[in-house]
């Protein structure tokens, strides 16, 4: 005998509050302030790999040498429930001081720096130089056959610049990942 009970839901049910858009993935930028102690980055990364979360971009550096604090900026993608879990799980890591979700906590700025090496001669070389000018990229190294451009901006701007450089002889690229900060005070 299998016992059956009438299934149903009421307005009281948590499930009725469920937003159908919940399953859509969102990209969030998290600023994680941590004690700069041995292994702290491994803890953060291990959390993401162990629980199957995405890391789109990750940057880390000490931001307060005296206080031994580092700031980790993580760009991640997931459903709203997953993003909430990520923040809660990060909060459990002992050396984590604070987790800020810059995507929801008001307007923020995001910047990334990239170095692009473009090799070419003649018309292509001139065109690369011209585009670099438009994108306000600096030339930080040049030979007769190559440039290294330094470009700073939102990740999309760097994507666009990279796409333009590809046919013009792009042969190496290094990106820093995103650094982000809330606007205003």
């Amino acid at each position, binding site marked *: 005998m299998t016992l*059956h*009970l009438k299934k149903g839901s*009421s307005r009281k*049910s*948590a499930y009725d509050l469920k937003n159908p858009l919940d399953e859509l993935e969102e990209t969030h930028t998290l600023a994680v302030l941590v004690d700069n102690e041995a*292994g702290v980055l491994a803890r953060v990364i291990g959390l993401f790999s162990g629980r199957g979360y995405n890391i789109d971009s990750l940057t880390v550096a000490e931001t307060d040498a005296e206080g031994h604090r580092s700031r980790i900026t993580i760009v991640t993608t997931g459903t709203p*429930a997953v993003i909430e879990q990520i923040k*809660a799980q990060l909060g459990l890591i*002992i050396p984590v001081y604070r987790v800020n979700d810059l995507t929801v906590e008001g307007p923020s700025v995001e910047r990334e720096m990239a170095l692009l090496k473009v090799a070419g001669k003649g018309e292509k070389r001139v065109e690369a130089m011209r585009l670099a000018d438009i994108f306000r990229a600096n030339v930080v190294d040049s030979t007769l056959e190559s440039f290294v451009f330094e470009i700073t901006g939102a990740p999309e701007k760097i994507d666009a610049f990279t796409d333009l450089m590809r046919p013009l002889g792009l042969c190496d690229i290094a990106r820093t990942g995103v650094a982000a900060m809330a606007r205003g005070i």
Partner: protein
Amino acid sequence: MSREMTGAQIVVEALKEQGVDTIFGYPGGAVLPIYDAIFQQNDIKHILVRHEQGATHAAEGYARSTGKPGVVLVTSGPGATNVVTGMTDALMDSIPMIVLSGQVPTFMIGNDAFQEADTVGITRPCSKHNWLVKDTADLAETIHQAFHIATSGRPGPVLVDIPKDVQFASAPYKAKAKTSTARYQPQVKGDIEAITRAVEAFEQAERPIIYSGGGVINSGVASSQLLRELVTSSNSPITSTLMGLGAYPASGDNWLGMLGMHGTVEANLAMHGCDFMLCVGARFDDRITGRTDAFSPDSFKVHMDIDPSSINKIIRVDVPIIGDIGHILEDFLKVWKARGRKTKSAAIKKWWSQINEWQARNCLDFTNSDTIIKPQHALQRLEELTKNMDRYITTEVGQHQMWAAQYLNFDDPHRFMTSGGLGTMGYGLPASVGVQVAHPEALVINIAGDASFQMNMQEMATAIQFNLPVKQFILNNERLGMVRQWQQLLHGERYSQSWSESLPDFVKLAEAFGAKGILVSDPADLDEAIKEMLAYDGPVILDCVVEKHENCFPMIPSGKAHNEMILCDEETADAIDAAGKSRV
């Protein structure tokens, strides 16, 4: 003035200051200085286990039965890798545990030195936090921090890795009082606004259920008292997870039995049909919820938990309350009383008559036999013969574990030690050793399976050495019973590797260890055998030969909802679909 000491002495001093009376451990090259310091003192008792995994489970048993943290001491390399299972177990079940491991000297780290392992790397995902101490001056403070972190907030295992040169070098001792714990202070008080909203919903509940878990027990005995007060004064039905058994007494009027995969019909149907659910220190584990999208579809859910990451992880709730269960329950009761202790008592009565109907199904009934011992019957007899004793129960993992949860009654917290979240076979025997160390005069019984028992049976020697009269009650079905059950139900009765071939003669095994062995296979002799076990002043292995093909019911197959329980063998045909098969 703080005294100058060697690192090894600092370890012992810090443990003493933390009130440690017992450690479970195993020596080796990289911890010799600490063992030397232990040799030269009498305040801390060292229990020499026979395998480091045994030390971790013994420490868990000690911790869960006392509410104090368990302490483990092991050497580097293999000693440290052997603690991984126990630490993971403690992490899943929120058991406070401090593991101290030796490490090769700092100047050799990274050289693949003899018995070097990246212990902090290996244990990072299975600890709440861990440390490699590179300077003796930091050692005392690190150990104090380790205790603080292991025991506050949601408890868990921590590890301190101590290189051998750090144990030899000297530094001033830093007292516990001088160690700042300000950095880690999890929220203990629940948000009063949320509590008030929860009370409002509680007052309106017509079909309430309280679903409690291990968090109530971890929060301390007073929390169980508050829970009982709430249940009794509101006449709410209550069920509990495996980890929460004993917080509300099994003999209490409002008790529905355990819920979940092998929970009672009344508990699961009440969860499914309630209009108000109060989850107290439990975490909506998949063994509890079954199919999540069909989980208690009609209820307003309140979740009290100390761990913010448990909120909305699996089941979305209407009111989350983060904090220590004791504090939250106290405030909840205060608010509820101040508002006049309102309940919909008439509706709740009606709800009870529905529940009574479910209870009348007697879902734990089984067909007994007078030729072969049914495992359920063996546990019923054990319950009958021990129920008024000062009794602690541990279990291994498998069918016997679920039957123990179903057929033994726990009237107090801290009396039932079992591996819930990780389901670690080999937990029960060493855990019983740890419990007996903490409660030398009490009756400590490990409900074991024939297969699980063999996973850490070397710890019988520990029991003998330290005069720990633990009783090993083996429900011997000559099968990996729970695996066999799943193969019967899910894999076309193809019993791949799930029988116990070449079982040892458990009576001779007991005797080889210096313990008493008893064999019983006739139901007529069962009571005598149990009494003989209880009367013997020393460790006993009781080999209770039981029905080989008994299945554990009720069962909610993986991926099914609470109202899709299987109650007996006749219902098992086609009960589980392909989607269910792929789940664990």
